């Protein structure tokens, strides 16, 4: 016996069930999305799981504060690093010519009038551009630079500023230790008198405070890195200032194995014309488990140390 349907009612019922089902499915989907666990792993570079805090709080390392602060000043496609320790301060490189005022102002803003040490790692303009302005603006106790010249006006102006202050240049001698408050730094390179590439003359120093250490390599390339490894220097450091803005011709595997950095800082300009940093360098740094901080992504990066613990801060606007 054929069953008779009230088709409209049946259709309505079916629609109703279907809609209910769909609502249930959509609800399931969205709840699944909400419940998705956060991505795992080292997410350096996307700002998720890093100890860096964003701007809005006081920049550590003003001259009145205790402890060590290492400021990787955002000078675009260049290097400039200010180090403060218990009222003493030193500077490694001074950015491009166009960063002169920025670097001087940044140092002044920390209440600094005297730089115990100024290191010009090597004579390229992206490292010594602001050097003449810095030497004119502050009292400088020691200036350390390698004995290699450049023909540029930038270099000439730096030499004039040194001369006008009655300063003499201290050559970098590997193994020499200099005090900075309760911290100290040791010179590790250059280890030869002559190099094919100006970058390899870069003064390399390792800064130590308590159980924490920082390695600053300027633009040193493979040749200088190999020398440091072969000399058996203690290169192991918590923080590595990556050589030559992360170029493909620095940061060899062998060197990284010796340094074993937890944190790698790359001083680099957004959309620079030279392809810095090289993808293979980033890859190598990730392989040794280093957390990468880049000035083109984070702005000025300040790393503090109390002799045991290291903290990272990043500031987009100085």
């Amino acid at each position, binding site marked *: 016996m054929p069953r008779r349907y009230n088709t409209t009612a049946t259709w309505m019922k079916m629609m109703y069930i279907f809609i209910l089902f769909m609502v249930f499915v959509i609800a399931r989907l969205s709840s699944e999305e909400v419940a998705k666990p956060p991505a795992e792993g080292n997410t350096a570079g996307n700002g998720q799981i890093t100890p860096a805090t964003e701007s809005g709080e006081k920049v550590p390392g003003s001259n009145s504060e205790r402890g060590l602060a290492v400021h990787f000043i955002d000078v675009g496609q260049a290097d400039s690093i200010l180090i403060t320790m218990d009222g003493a301060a030193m500077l490694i490189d001074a950015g*491009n*010519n166009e960063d002169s005022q920025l670097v001087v102002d940044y140092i002044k803003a920390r209440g600094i009038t005297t730089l115990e040490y100024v290191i010009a790692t090597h004579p*390229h*303009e*992206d490292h010594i551009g602001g050097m003449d302005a810095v030497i004119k603006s502050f009292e400088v106790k020691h200036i350390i630079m390698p*004995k290699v*010249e*450049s*023909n*540029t*006006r*930038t*270099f*000439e*102006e730096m*030499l*004039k500023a*040194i*001369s006008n202050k009655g*300063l*003499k*240049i*201290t*050559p970098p001698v590997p193994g020499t230790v200099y005090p900075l408050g309760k911290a100290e730094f040791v010179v590790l390179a250059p280890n030869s008198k002559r190099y094919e590439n*100006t970058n390899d003359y870069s003064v390399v120093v390792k800064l130590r405070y308590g159980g924490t250490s920082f390695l600053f390599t300027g633009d040193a390339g493979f040749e200088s890195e190999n020398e440091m490894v072969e000399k058996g220097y203690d290169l192991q450091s918590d923080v590595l200032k990556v050589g030559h803005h992360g170029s493909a011709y620095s940061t060899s595997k062998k060197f990284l194995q010796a340094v074993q950095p937890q944190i790698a800082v790359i001083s680099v300009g957004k959309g620079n*014309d*030279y*392809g*810095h940093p090289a993808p293979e360098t980033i890859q190598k740094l990730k392989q040794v488990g280093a957390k990468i901080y880049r000035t083109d992504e984070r702005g000025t990066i300040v790393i503090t140390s109390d002799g045991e613990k290291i903290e990272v801060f990043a500031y987009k606007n100085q």
Partner: protein
Amino acid sequence: MKKVIIDRFEGNFAVCEDEDRKMINVERSRLPEGAEEGTVLVLKVSGEDIEIEIDHDETRARKMKIKEMMDSLFS
């Protein structure tokens, strides 16, 4: 006419310093034979074309002058 000094090589460029300490990128492929760090270049621009020559005399003169300054400053 413009005079620049090669400061460094980065990627495909020679990064050069002009008389006002402004930096300009010059493609390596356009450099004359023998151009290296420290070389003084003369850029002659005529319309679309750039002619690049080495100023050997000024390159030498600058080298000597800076070397003398350096020698007097090292302790």
